[in-house]
């Protein structure tokens, strides 16, 4: 059997449900752990970052307004689609992180299971963190969590896929929309994830994938007036401080980098609550007084 020349994939961004190249026309070389060429990835620009925010904002109304049940169904669908492309992701993660096939498979399996975990959370988190408040007066009073809005995410640098899924899923499970910057040296699993999201009934713009230099594209995201929050998971100390200062301009919610020893461990709810607001609604109940009812 003769050696067949394989077909390379052009890796592209995923923005607003479409697969554009960087508007800058730039790419950068991505290599495996041994330094061998894997592909050219788009080197996103500030303009790409701003386009992604526009797409994320546009998607926010419908996604945050979808029922929690519907969001759960879609997150589960992402897990289904990933399962079908498991071999591809095992290969990409192995190349990206220099792992054996078995090690990479463990990462991918954990990532698929993570989508399932968060799929189940969409219609439960409100009961866990919200509820009625027993105020001292004749009032109905209810606190409910609501998504913060558009969340920028600097994806973890070391865990190119499981780490990525672990920070993206909690952001969108609760109805936020996301713009994320993939791991700089190993962006390919993230870019391929865009292809999975595009075929999972996830509305375009809910997740937007950028690859490139975090130092270049995270800064305009941190300073963007229409971004509501930022997750600094993959930023080093120097960049994280710089981004947190920029984020103060419109008082973004900031999730600072947290040390994560083991991405396979079951997450808590902190990554969801970091990007939730609490809305409290009051209404008089009326009351029965000596002179009769007031309702």
């Amino acid at each position, binding site marked *: 059997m003769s050696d067949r020349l394989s077909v390379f994939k052009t890796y592209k961004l995923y923005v607003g449900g479409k697969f554009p190249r960087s508007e800058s026309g730039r790419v950068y070389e991505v290599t495996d752990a041994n330094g061998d060429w894997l592909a050219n990835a788009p080197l996103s620009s500030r303009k790409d970052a701003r386009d992604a925010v526009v797409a994320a904002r546009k998607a926010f109304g419908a996604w945050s307004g979808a029922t929690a049940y519907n969001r759960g169904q879609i997150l589960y669908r992402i897990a289904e689609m990933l399962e079908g492309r498991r071999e591809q992701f095992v290969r990409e993660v192995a190349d990206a992180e220099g792992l054996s096939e078995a090690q990479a498979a463990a990462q991918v399996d954990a990532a698929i299971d993570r989508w399932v975990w968060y799929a189940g959370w969409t219609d439960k988190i409100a009961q866990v963190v919200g509820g009625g408040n027993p*105020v001292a*007066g004749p009032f109905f*009073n209810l606190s409910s969590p609501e998504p*913060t809005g558009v969340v920028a995410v600097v994806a973890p640098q070391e865990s190119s896929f499981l780490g990525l899924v672990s920070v993206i899923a909690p952001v969108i499970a609760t109805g936020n929309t996301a713009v994320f910057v993939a791991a700089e040296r190993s962006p390919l699993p993230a870019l391929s994830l865009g292809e999975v999201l595009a075929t999972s009934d996830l509305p375009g713009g809910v997740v937007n994938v950028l690859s490139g230099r975090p130092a270049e594209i995270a800064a305009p995201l941190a300073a963007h007036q229409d971004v509501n929050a930022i997750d600094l998971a993959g930023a080093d100390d120097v960049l994280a401080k710089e981004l947190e200062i920029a*984020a103060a301009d419109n*008082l973004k919610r900031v999730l600072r980098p947290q040390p994560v020893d083991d991405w396979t461990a079951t997450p808590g709810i902190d990554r969801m609550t970091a990007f939730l*607001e*609490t*809305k409290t*609604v009051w209404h008089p109940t009326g009351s029965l007084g000596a002179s009769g009812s007031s309702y």
Partner: protein
Amino acid sequence: MTFEYAPAPESRSVVDIAPSYGLFIDGEFAEAADGKVFKTVSPSTEEVLSEVAQAGEADVDRAVRAARKAFGTWSALPGSERAKYLFRIARIIQERSRELAVLETLDNGKPIKETRDADLPLVAAHFFYYAGWADKLEHAGFGPAPRPLGVAGQVIPWNFPLLMLAWKIAPALATGNTVVLKPAETTPLSALFFADICRQAGLPKGVVNIVPGYGDAGAALVAHPDVNKVAFTGSTAVGKEIARTVAGTRKKLTLELGGKGANIVFDDAPIDQAVEGIVSGIFFNQGQVCCAGSRLLVQESIHDELLDSLKRRLATLRLGDPLDKNTDIGAINSAEQLARITALAEQGEAEGAERWSPACELPSAGYWFAPTLFTNVTQAHTIARDEIFGPVLSVLTFRTPDEAVAKANNTPYGLSAGIWTEKGSRILAVANKLRAGVIWSNTFNKFDPTSPFGGYKESGFGREGGRHGLEAYLDV
């Protein structure tokens, strides 16, 4: 014939204000390291009430060290013991509530009716509420053994001096933190009386430290390397500066900042109730309230009717001596704040909005501003965008619910909003779409220790009150 109100002054004799006060650090009152003092005046008369030690960086450092020293023992106490200290404090506040109400009215300028019936009952209730949490933290949903953060640096404003202190100190102590609190420079007295309450309650030294002073003291506290938690209530501009200061540190931050709340009145609203809500929304505490309903959005078809009712109601408000039990509108807190309100109102006129105030005689001494409303206001007007923090209402109109929601959300702030309509589904739909942390429907300006309070967007982050309020002081 007309019936005039007779004067009904609350007695001042219930409170004994010393000629001078020190900083409260490590359980002792002390002078500032550099000997600086400042005067605090009664805004309704400009009478000097007392001279207060002015904390500087060295004093803040000493206070933080005292709080750090106290943290080990305090956080190691069983929750049930911490709870009992807080219950004691709550009880003593109740016992001394008349004294504290008069004191607060003198130092702040707000009517005794408000300090007596709103501020003080809420202060006591807040301590009672969080006292009960101290030995139940493992059941609060923050993990099996949530830990305190350490030393909390807290900076509070002048509009509800003792209530803001309660919102800060009660959850901090219940969760096992120790605190250094800086009250506002125009209203330091109730915090210093609170120090005495801590003494009466036998609270261990250093658990609560009070450092009156100006912005420099607040900045030093926020920037202090040994502070683990920063909580601030105040202006959005200062909040942003604080967020920059703590960037890159491990300090946990909560901010409760400005607002430009929309009070939305639909054409089917109960007009008389809505008018009461509008008045409470913007004239409670002279409008010096971050969650004030400072933008009235009224459906076009009832604009004239509502405005007529509102103006009739405003004509009955009584402005004057804050210690008089019949007073509705007290003094503005400071000359500086009065100047700001005055300038913004003048800008409103200059930009073309129509100004109206009821006939209202202002006292000759002190800082006063008549209840004011502006009609013909557009969204572009400064008075529709900037927080005025005074008794000034901007009236805008809308035709459809969608337009009302769009206008209400057209602000960088997101603290409060009001909805007035008899239609239940409209309340729920509009409440759902408003980007604000507290929505009052067919009511306004209701507060309760069990009810989380805090903003969306540039009104800050984190919640105070309720189970939610614990999170700000726990290592979660």
